[in-house]
């Protein structure tokens, strides 16, 4: 009977692929019992109309155009695809970090393996997008990206947005040892890098001015030369032309490290700093104040102790792991970990996203469980659901595409049999951009 099952699975996969191929063009209308549009409350007995991968319309009175494929989910919940903000899915083991301490120009996309097997499993739990970022072994580890769980052969086809943030880390223990000195060192060397970037930018500006001047001078010289030629009486024009020739200013070499950090300083790319202990978090905040950065706090293990300050700064926080059980062996910085962290922060009004921060890629499938755990420890149900859909999308600047069910957004949605945060909320169907990528048999 197992062999039958096996055959069946293959078959269903085959069918699935055909379905995906078919449903590419056609419109889909979902009759849903409960539509959890995160952004605009719950719509009961509504209809979602999907047209070429986008949400065309949703609401209680939406006319279903004939020819549209109608999916019946009357007694079910429809929610936007879940997002794991601290995922390792697709990333090759041991490729999370470069040995160099400050390397913000590294791109996690280069460490992505499109041929992994886990994708389907994670998809089957309703996760449609993950944010992957470099690890915490580098002070400035590199650029993160948001990937969609499409079946794709290259990273380019999966990626939703690149350069979503530069991942940094302060006060990470090495081989379960940490000292205030290393903390200081981490903080100051990140700061140094930013200062150097500023000087680098100044030099660049300086060069541009000089270049402009030089061009001007050259133009003048040309004029002079011309005029000299016109009044061509004496033969000393050459000697005059020869003297004080403008020299072209030397172009400073472009440095990718500083180029990226410049964009960070320009608030174009946020800085995502992983900090666990209170002092580290405070250091991160200080950095943000000094250079007026767009900061994202990662992990933020002891955030609950200074929730007010974080709230006052209006800094978004990615809390995770909700429970240290998701880690392989909790390191020193998790000593004061508290499962109520997310709840406390969000109650204080901090913008909280949740991540699994699991031990491997496949553990991204636990994102709903993580949220549920947060709820059990006092987080508001709505907030928790938002923290694994819209909030991460906002934090990583993809809220215009995913994170909630709104007209015009990508049709990345999941049909649950029960509320997504229920332990036994069976995922019935997953759509990514209007294509059915998973369907429970």
């Amino acid at each position, binding site marked *: 009977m197992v062999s039958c099952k096996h055959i069946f699975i293959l078959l269903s996969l085959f069918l699935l692929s055909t379905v995906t191929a078919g449903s590419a063009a056609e419109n889909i209308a979902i009759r849903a019992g409960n539509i959890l549009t995160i952004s605009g409350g719950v719509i009961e007995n509504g209809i979602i109309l999907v047209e070429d991968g986008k949400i065309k319309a949703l609401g209680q009175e939406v006319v279903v155009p004939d020819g549209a494929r109608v999916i019946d989910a009357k007694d079910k919940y429809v929610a936007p695809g879940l997002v794991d903000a601290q995922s390792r899915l697709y990333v090759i083991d041991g490729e999370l970090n470069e040995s160099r301490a400050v390397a913000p120009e590294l791109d996690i996309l280069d460490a992505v393996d499109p041929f992994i097997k886990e994708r389907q499993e994670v998809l089957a739990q309703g996760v449609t997008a993950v944010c992957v970022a470099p690890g915490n072994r580098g002070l400035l580890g590199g650029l993160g990206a948001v990937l969609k769980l499409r079946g794709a052969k290259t990273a380019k086809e999966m990626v939703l947005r690149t350069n979503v943030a530069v991942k940094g880390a302060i006060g990470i223990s090495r081989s379960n040892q940490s000292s205030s000195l290393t903390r200081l060192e981490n903080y100051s060397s990140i700061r140094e890098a930013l200062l150097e970037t500023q000087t680098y930018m100044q030099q660049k500006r300086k060069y541009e001015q000089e270049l402009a001047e030089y061009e001007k001078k050259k133009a003048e010289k040309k004029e002079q030369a011309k005029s000299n030629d016109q009044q061509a009486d004496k033969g000393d024009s050459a000697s005059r032309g020869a003297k004080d020739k403008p020299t072209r200013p030397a172009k400073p070499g472009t440095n990718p490290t500083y180029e990226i950090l410049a964009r960070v300083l320009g608030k174009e790319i946020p800085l995502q700093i992983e900090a666990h202990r209170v002092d580290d978090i405070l250091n991160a905040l200080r950095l943000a104040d000094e250079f007026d950065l767009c900061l994202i706090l990662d992990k933020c293990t002891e955030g609950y102790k200074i929730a007010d300050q974080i709230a006052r700064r209006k800094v978004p926080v990615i809390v995770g792991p909700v429970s240290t*059980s998701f880690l392989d062996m909790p390191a020193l910085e998790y000593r004061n970990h508290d499962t109520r962290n997310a709840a406390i922060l969000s109650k204080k009004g901090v913008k909280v996203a949740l991540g699994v921060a699991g031990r491997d890629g*496949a553990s991204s499938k636990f994102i709903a469980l993580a949220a549920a755990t947060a709820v059990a420890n006092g987080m508001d149900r709505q907030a928790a659901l938002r923290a694994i859909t819209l909030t991460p999308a906002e934090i990583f600047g993809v809220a215009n595409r995913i994170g909630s069910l709104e007209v015009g957004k990508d049709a990345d949605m999941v049909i649950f049999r029960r509320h997504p945060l229920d*332990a036994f909320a069976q995922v019935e169907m997953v759509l990514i951009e209007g294509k059915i990528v998973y369907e429970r048999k």
Partner: protein
Amino acid sequence: MSGSDTGTSRRLCPKAWWALLTILSLSLCAGPAMAGADRQSLVIKAGVIWPMTGSAITNGLVIIENGKITAVGTNLPIPEGAKILEMPDKQVMPGLIDGHCHLGLSLAAFAEIEETVSAVTPDMQILDAFNPLASDVTKALRSGVTTVLLAPGYKNPIAGQMAIVKLPGGKKDAGIINRSAGVKFSLGNEALMSDRRPTSRPGLLAQVREELNKAGQYQEGKFDPRAEILKRVVQGQLPVHIYCNAVDEILAAIKIIDEYKLKAVIVGAREGDEIAEMLAERNIPLIYMPTILASQDKDLKRVGRIAAAGVKVAFASYAPRTNLSDLRTSAIIAAKYGLAPELALKGLTINAAEILGIAQRLGSIEPGKDADLVILSGDPLELTSGVEMVIIDGNIVYQKEQK
């Protein structure tokens, strides 16, 4: 209390039981905090009661007197002067039982439990390393776990004696149920070291057999504490908890169990599903590894298959490897991936109690059993439902602060 009598009491006549109980109640009375609490009776009115032995009771009540449950059911006569807890929207279940953990050790837990100088240390007692006032113990009450089995480490083929204790709830003395609840063996590859015997799997198994044979031939008189303990193991007085995960490890364990007719429990058993029926026909119970440590679907589905094959399964947290509060999470994940929900609940309570041999006192809400209860905000198999209150021996040892 001396180690031996409590150690054997499990399998001895009820007389010894009374002895034990008196000892225990005494030890409990010692705490001035609950001197009063013990005498007065407590009544819990809850939306749902999960007795574990029977079906769930809606809008029922549990009556507790002197730290024992005296009655469970709907509309029972309430004894006068009883303190009544009205919790119509809450659900009550027996205190959770953790089948295998390393709680209450120093921060470097995994250094504390590995006595790797010698590979064979059955005479070690984990209880000697247990600190009831350690931070993780005091925190632990939030998780709804009331009873834990403390075990030594994984690196010794014959690691030492395990203990079963109730969480003290801030009291100095842990409610010790059984000082030596059995000997832990480790047949996993963790037990191999490059610079100590054994270095190989055949060598590991050879050594275990060697020790058991020695114990079999051990005659009283000449003092050998190790053989002393192992003799009781070989005679089946003392159960063994054999840690093994891969198929070959489990097969090796089964072989040794058969050869020496051991009274055994298998701990870990990650790949147990592939030989589940062998475990079933020998009815060897399992204390399954924390499912939260797995992430691949094919691994998450295993425990369900094992239980389906008719093996009795309980859960463990390996704390501090995983949080005590995720004992329930592990059970829920197991249920989510195919374990029958009611088996998941029993695995946390009554089945665990039976596997650990403490079912006479714990694991269900029945008259005569210890009043170790957990009050949850919702369905015990929903992660979203949090622990509201924990009661041990009729005393409220944890209560969620109300905001």
